[in-house]
């Protein structure tokens, strides 16, 4: 009736589990197609809300893995994408809570050296630096909201799923985040113009 279970049996069981084809809800072809459509926007989103490219690299794989492990059928491509972005948002939030990292403030642009360069290149660089610094001053959720709504042009219903808020609240939250970012950008522009004026004198 009983059979002996030896250490080799345990090893055999583990080997069987390792060799078995892992069944995800998505097959490989569907995954590849979905990945091609979403990986770049997701990476950019992760790097924007975390403020760190290395973090984006790490969390990209993790986000797709968690999505693959979810036993759920998706209503639509948009629903699946919203869920993926929600996973990514939570991963960044968890990392933020664990390590208490803050987005690193970029160094102030050197006005004198900027003036010596070509004007258009300098202006573009200053604009980007201003935006990065301004985004770093926003709350993580505000950064996510603005990036999803305007840079990635996600509909409000999808943003609501991604950030775990009511669809009706997105408009108000977006309004506040936009006003805050615009104020920071405007004050930053004034400072940059003043710095340039001093450098010219």
């Amino acid at each position, binding site marked *: 009736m*009983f059979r002996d279970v030896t250490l080799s049996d345990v090893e055999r069981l583990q080997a069987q589990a390792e060799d078995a084809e892992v069944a995800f809800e998505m097959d*490989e072809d569907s995954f590849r197609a979905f990945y091609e459509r979403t990986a770049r926007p997701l990476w950019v989103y992760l790097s924007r809300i975390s403020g760190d490219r290395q973090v984006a690299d790490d969390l990209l794989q993790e986000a797709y893995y968690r999505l693959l492990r979810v036993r759920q059928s998706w209503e639509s491509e948009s629903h699946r994408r919203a869920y993926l972005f929600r996973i990514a948002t939570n991963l960044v939030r968890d990392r933020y809570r664990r390590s208490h990292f803050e987005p690193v403030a970029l160094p102030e642009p050197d006005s004198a050296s900027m003036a010596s360069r070509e004007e258009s290149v300098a202006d573009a660089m200053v604009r980007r630096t201003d935006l990065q610094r301004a985004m770093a001053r926003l709350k993580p959720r505000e950064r996510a909201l603005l990036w999803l709504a305007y840079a990635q042009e996600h509909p409000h219903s999808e943003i609501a799923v991604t950030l775990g808020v009511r669809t009706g609240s997105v408009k108000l939250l977006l309004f506040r985040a936009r006003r805050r970012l615009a104020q920071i*950008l405007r004050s930053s522009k004034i400072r940059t113009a003043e710095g340039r004026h001093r450098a010219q004198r």
Partner: protein
Amino acid sequence: MPNVECPREQDLLDALTAGRWPERCEAELRAHVDGCAICTDLVEVVGALFDARDVVYADVAVPASGTVWWRAQIRARREASLRAARPMTVVQAVAACLGLVAVIGLYFLAAPWLSDSFAPLSGLMTFRFDGLTLPGIDAVKQWAWPIAVILGTWLIVTPIAIYLTAGKE
């Protein structure tokens, strides 16, 4: 509550998205934006975000889809393997605990016999058992049955548990 929405917001957003702002859009919309705080903020923020997006997208390097799929497969298999081994670990831990209980029980059962058998070495034995204040022979008899039941259960249940676990997996 402040007004969070402007009726021209969507028109402006469409113009910004299509690259028509500011040169190729209606003068009326430009005039509206000049006098509307919501639309002014929108131009400021969306312009900066579009610019940043274009730069960032040009610099994105993500792993190939096949690599991500393969890594996910490997990780899922490893986790399945750990899950498969978990019941075995639990059974082994339970067996070890029961074994420990049995050894302690046997020790107390055998203590009087050990005392008698090693009476000639009373000096050493006294030193050893006095310190432990062993229970009397009546107390040992009182615990003999429960200990025997635990020992017997362990000997029967452990192989069955291992058999069932291995069978399921």
